[in-house]
């Protein structure tokens, strides 16, 4: 049976569907994708506060990207704010590939440390790095200053 989200949001012929995004995070996913009205030629559909019953949840967000596929860095960033998201690659209306996002052991260069006094925020030639202490909800600890990162979505690079 069709998911109600698929009925409300038109299917795409080719592209990517990012489903099971944490309720309220769809706009942050768009921020990660870096898309705006001036730099994209295909359509994007967004469903927010869409009913779901997966894992006992009531609501989710969903984003459909026509004619776009995501690189590994982008998928890793999405995992930081939507750890339960699934990515489906659509080709000619069919799901050609489907996988769940997953954070690795470490996050490197995707997000900056929220501690302004951390050495990674002081102009040194170093990429911010974090240990993944918990995947869902994501909890990251700075490799350098040892602080737990606050507000992941506000600190995405």
């Amino acid at each position, binding site marked *: 049976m069709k998911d109600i989200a698929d009925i409300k949001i038109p299917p795409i012929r080719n592209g990517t569907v990012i489903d099971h995004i944490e309720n309220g995070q769809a706009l942050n996913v768009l921020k990660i994708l870096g898309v705006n009205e001036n730099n994209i030629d295909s359509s994007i559909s967004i469903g927010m506060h869409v009913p779901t019953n997966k894992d006992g949840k009531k609501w989710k967000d969903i984003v459909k990207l026509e004619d776009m596929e995501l690189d590994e860095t982008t998928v890793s960033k999405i995992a930081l704010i939507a750890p339960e998201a699934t990515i489906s690659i659509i080709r000619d209306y069919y799901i050609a590939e489907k996988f769940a996002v997953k954070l690795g052991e470490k996050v490197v260069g995707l997000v900056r440390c929220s501690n302004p*006094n951390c*050495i990674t925020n002081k102009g040194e030639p170093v990429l911010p790095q974090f240990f993944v202490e918990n995947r869902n909800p994501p909890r990251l600890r700075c490799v*350098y200053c040892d602080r737990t990162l606050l507000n992941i979505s506000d600190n995405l690079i």
Partner: protein
Amino acid sequence: MDFYDKDLVSIRDLTKDQIEYILDLSKKMVPYARGEKVKRALDGKILGNLFFEPSTRTKLSFESAAYRLGCDVIDVSEMSMTSIAKGETLADTIRMVDAYCDVIVLRHPFEGAARLAADVSENPVINAGDGAGSHPTQMLLDLFTMKEAKGSLEGLNVTMVGDLKYGRTVHTLAQALANFGVKLTLVAPESLQMPHDIVDRLKRNGCVPKKTSVLEDVIGDADVLYVTRIQKERFPDPAEYQKVAGTYRIDNAMLRNAKDDMMVMHPLPRVNEIATEVDSTPHAKYFQQAFNGVPVRMAILCAILGGDI
């Protein structure tokens, strides 16, 4: 115990067994630290002592520890005297100093500086305090002081009072104490309480600290009273400092309800948190604590540089 050529950057670099190894080795170092015995176990080695923030005890005790073991010291005490003042990155400074010595000791105002230094340095790096972050050698000498006075760390009731928010010493020490099954009590105004992420880590290690702002309510239960200075230099807003400065003062009247063998510790310098009248009581252990910096840092240098005592 394999410490040779290892960095000592944070409490996370140490297991409980490694901590106990350093404490045991520190005990062996005491007569050498006092000059009663002499052994140049690190003859021919050079320590690079980089202090980009003010320090008296840590810097001097590292120097003393090195000289007692026959290790030479080169040092920098002010950022204004280095190429950092000309815009050189810390990473480049460390690479340069790394070429001149066998071990680097770093005190720096920014959190994570020692980890960065360890990343770029071929030789081992010892963190001597990075901003409000870690101060692992102070933690080890604090544990050594407690263990020497009490015989064991297991089950002690340790009460920390003062600036628990910005004080790097208490952040590191609290996490180390959680390994030894201590009962921890945190005494501070709400605005200076221990950061939530540290408290969460303590809880994950099975230590649920008791929090209060009233020292009088808990002093009678303490085996160790660990006092810290409310540090003006760590406050972003001077008005916030004025609100809490002088909140706690330990004097003989305050100690009236303490256990007879309760020990008072302080990483020093003190300003007015501990009245000088306390110095002559059996409670005062802070000068012994300052001395212990030498044998503990001797043990750390020996373990990392492979000296034989």
